[in-house]
C-alpha cells in the first residue's frame, strides 16, 4: 500500500487482470507507445503512459497497436468480446465517439438483448474526458451523458486513484460493455492504493463527506471542487454532504435520495453541458422521487450549453469551480419560499 497516481492505479489494474486472465487484451492507437519513433516501441506507453510496459510482458498478441481508425478498434474489440476475449479498447479522446458510435451503441450495447441473452460482450472502452487543457472544442468534451443514455452500456467515471483501480478491475471482469471515463487533468492525482487486486461494485456511490445541510452530487474532477467549496462553506456554518456516484450507469439512486431526504437541498455539479446531461438527469430523479423532502429548488452547476472554448480565459469561465458551487449551495441554503 502506498500513494499512487491514477495513471499508476490504472496501469496496475491492467497488469493484474492481464496476468490473471489470458483472455484480457489491450487494443488501441499507439497503446504500446513509441513504435516508429526514435525511442522505439514502449518508449511512452501510450499517449497517456497508462499502458507502458505491457507489450514487454504480454507481447504483440495481447497489446495491439492499431491504425488511427476508431471504428475499426471498436468493431474489432466488440467482435473479439462476443467471441470470448475480454478486450480493453482505448478511445483516446471520447470526443471521437462520433466516428465509432455504431459499433458501441448499436452493436456492443445490443448483443446481449438481440441474441436472446446468449451473447456476452465483456468489453471495456477506456476513454479520456474533460476540459482544462485548452485542447479546444473537439478534444475537451465530457460526453458520458450520451453513453449513460444508452441501455446496455455501463458507465464509470472515477474521481480518485483508489476508485480508478477497483472500478477498472470490476469493469474488466464485468460481462457487459463498460465505458470507462478518465479525466485528462486527473492522471497525476494521488491517494493510498493497495498493491493487491480489488474490485468496487458498480452502482455504489461514495459518500465523500457527511453533512446535514445540503447534498452535493459531483462527478470526476468536480468532486474535488465540491470538497473545496464544502471547506469554504463549513467556515460559514453550512454543512455539506458530498456524493460521488462513481458510476452513472448503473446509478446509485438510493444513496442520493436518502441524502436529500435528510438535507432537503440538492446541488448537482457536472463539467459536462447541461441539456440531457447527468446533472439534469439526477435533478429529475430527485424531483420525481424525493419532491416532498425538498426545502429549496434543485440547483445545477454545469458548463454552459456551448462547445468548450479554446481560449484559456474563456475555458476557465466555462468549467464550474468551487466559487460557483459555493454560490449555488448558499442560494439553496438561504432559500425562503
Amino acid at each position, binding site marked *: *500500500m502506498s500513494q499512487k497516481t491514477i495513471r499508476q492505479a490504472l496501469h496496475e489494474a491492467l497488469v493484474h487482470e492481464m496476468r490473471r486472465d489470458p483472455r484480457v487484451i489491450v487494443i488501441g492507437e499507439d497503446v504500446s507507445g513509441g513504435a516508429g519513433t526514435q525511442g522505439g516501441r514502449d518508449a511512452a506507453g501510450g499517449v497517456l503512459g497508462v499502458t507502458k510496459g505491457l507489450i514487454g510482458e504480454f507481447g504483440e498478441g495481447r497489446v495491439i497497436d492499431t491504425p488511427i481508425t476508431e471504428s475499426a478498434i471498436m468493431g474489432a474489440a466488440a467482435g473479439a468480446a462476443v467471441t470470448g476475449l475480454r478486450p480493453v479498447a482505448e478511445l483516446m479522446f471520447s470526443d471521437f465517439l462520433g466516428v465509432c458510435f455504431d459499433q458501441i451503441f448499436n452493436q456492443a450495447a445490443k448483443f446481449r438483448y438481440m441474441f436472446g441473452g446468449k451473447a456476452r460482450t465483456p468489453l471495456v472502452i477506456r476513454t479520456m474526458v474533460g476540459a482544462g487543457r485548452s485542447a479546444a472544442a473537439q478534444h475537451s468534451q465530457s460526453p458520458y451523458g450520451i453513453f449513460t443514455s444508452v441501455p446496455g452500456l455501463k458507465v464509470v467515471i472515477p474521481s480518485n486513484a*483508489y476508485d480508478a483501480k*477497483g472500478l477498472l478491475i470490476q469493469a474488466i471482469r464485468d460481462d457487459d460493455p463498460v465505458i470507462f471515463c478518465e479525466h485528462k487533468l486527473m492522471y497525476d492525482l494521488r491517494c493510498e492504493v*493497495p498493491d*493487491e*487486486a*480489488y*474490485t*468496487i*461494485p458498480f452502482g*455504489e456511490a461514495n*459518500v465523500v463527506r*457527511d453533512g446535514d445541510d445540503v447534498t452535493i452530487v459531483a462527478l470526476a474532477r468536480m468532486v474535488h471542487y465540491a470538497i473545496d467549496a464544502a471547506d469554504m462553506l463549513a467556515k460559514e456554518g453550512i454543512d455539506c454532504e458530498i456524493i460521488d456516484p462513481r458510476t452513472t450507469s448503473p446509478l446509485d439512486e438510493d*444513496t442520493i435520495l436518502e441524502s436529500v431526504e435528510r438535507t432537503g437541498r440538492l446541488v448537482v455539479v457536472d463539467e459536462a453541458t447541461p441539456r440531457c446531461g447527468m446533472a439534469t438527469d439526477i435533478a429529475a430523479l430527485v424531483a420525481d422521487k424525493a419532491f416532498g423532502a425538498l426545502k429549496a429548488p434543485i440547483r445545477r452547476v454545469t458548463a454552459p450549453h456551448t462547445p468548450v472554448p479554446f481560449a484559456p480565459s474563456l475555458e476557465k469561465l466555462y468549467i464550474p469551480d468551487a466559487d460557483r458551487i459555493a454560490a449555488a449551495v448558499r442560494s439553496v441554503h438561504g432559500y425562503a419560499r
Partner: protein
Amino acid sequence: MSIVALTMPKWGLTMTEGTVVKWLRAPGASFAPGDEILEIETSKIANVLEAETTGTLARIVAPEGAILPIGALLAVIAPAATPDAAIDAFVTEYAAPEPSDRPEADAEPVAPAYLEAGPGRLRYLDLGSGAGVPVLLLHGFGADLNSWMFTQPALAEGRRVIALDLPGHGGSVKDVGDGSPAAFVDAVGQALDALGLDRVHLVGHSMGGAIAALVAARWPDRVASLTLIAPAGFGPAINTAFIEGFIRATRRRDAEAVLGLLVHDKSLISKAMVEDVLRYKRLDGATDALRTIARAWFADRQQRVAVAAPRLPVQLIWGENDQIIPVSDAAGTVTHRLEAAGHLPHMEKASEVNRLIRRFIAG
C-alpha cells in the same frame, strides 16, 4: 507531583489530528485512573480519553470544537496548589516549539512492515522498545491490526508491542489453507520466529483469543501470559448471523448494519470504519478466505473449536453486552466483565482494558 501535559493521542495508523468534542471534567476537578476526561473524535472513531493516573485538571487549553494535531497540548495537569504563573509558563513553553520540532508530534514513523511466514507475506505493526517481555496482539475474524489502535500505543512503553494481521486478513496474504485453528497456530509460530520473539505476552480478541490460547498450549515456554478478550473457543455459542452477514456484505448499508452488532454504542461505527471494512473485503481473495475460515470454525450455528485455558496466567475480558460471543467463564481464569461494552471492549472501554492488560503483564 509536577506539571504534566495532556496531549492529543494517536489512535490508529492514519490519525494525524483529532477534534476536541466535549470536556467531561471541569477545570480544577481532580480525577482518578479510569475517569473520563474528554471526548475526542477522529475521522475513524470517537472515543473518550480516560485518565491514566490520579491528578487535577489545572487548566483546559484546547476549546471544544478545536481540531488539533497529535501531540498538541489539550490541558495541563498539576497539583491544586500550583500557581497560575507556573501553569502559564508551562503552556507558553509547550506551545512555543513548531509542531515538527516536538518529538510527540512526529514520533516514530508508524508504518506497518511485512514478514514471511508459511502461508506467505504477513503484515505487522511494531511499536515500542525496551527490556520488557514483548506483547503480541492477535485480532479477531475479519478484523486487522488497526483494531488495536487504542491498545497498542498504550502498552508500548518499555517493551515491544506487535500487532499482526493474521493470514486472510488486513494486508496479509489471503491464502488461509484450510482455515483451521492449526493453520493459524502454525502461522503465529512462524511469525514469532521471524520477529525474533522467544517469549511474549499474548493478547487475543475473539478468534484471535482462541488462537492465542492454542499457541500457548503448543508452546507454553514461549508465552508469559494470556489476555483473552471475548475469545472464541470457550463455549459453543456464536452469533453466526454476524459471521454470515459480515461475509456477504459488499455494500455500505449492509456492512453498517452488521458492524453495529459488534458494539454496545452504535455511534462508534463511523463511516470511515465501514469504508475500511469494505476496502478489505473488496481485495481479491478476502471473501474466500473468510468463507474458508468460517467453515473450519463454525458449523450448525455453533463454534466447532473448543480450547482449554492452559496452565499459564490467564485473564478473560468480556463485554456484558456482547452480541457475538456471550460471556462465558472458564475454570481457573479471572474474568473481567465490562459494563456497557459489546464484542469490542478493547475499543469501547479502551482505557479500562489497557489498565487490565498493563496490570496483568506487569505482575
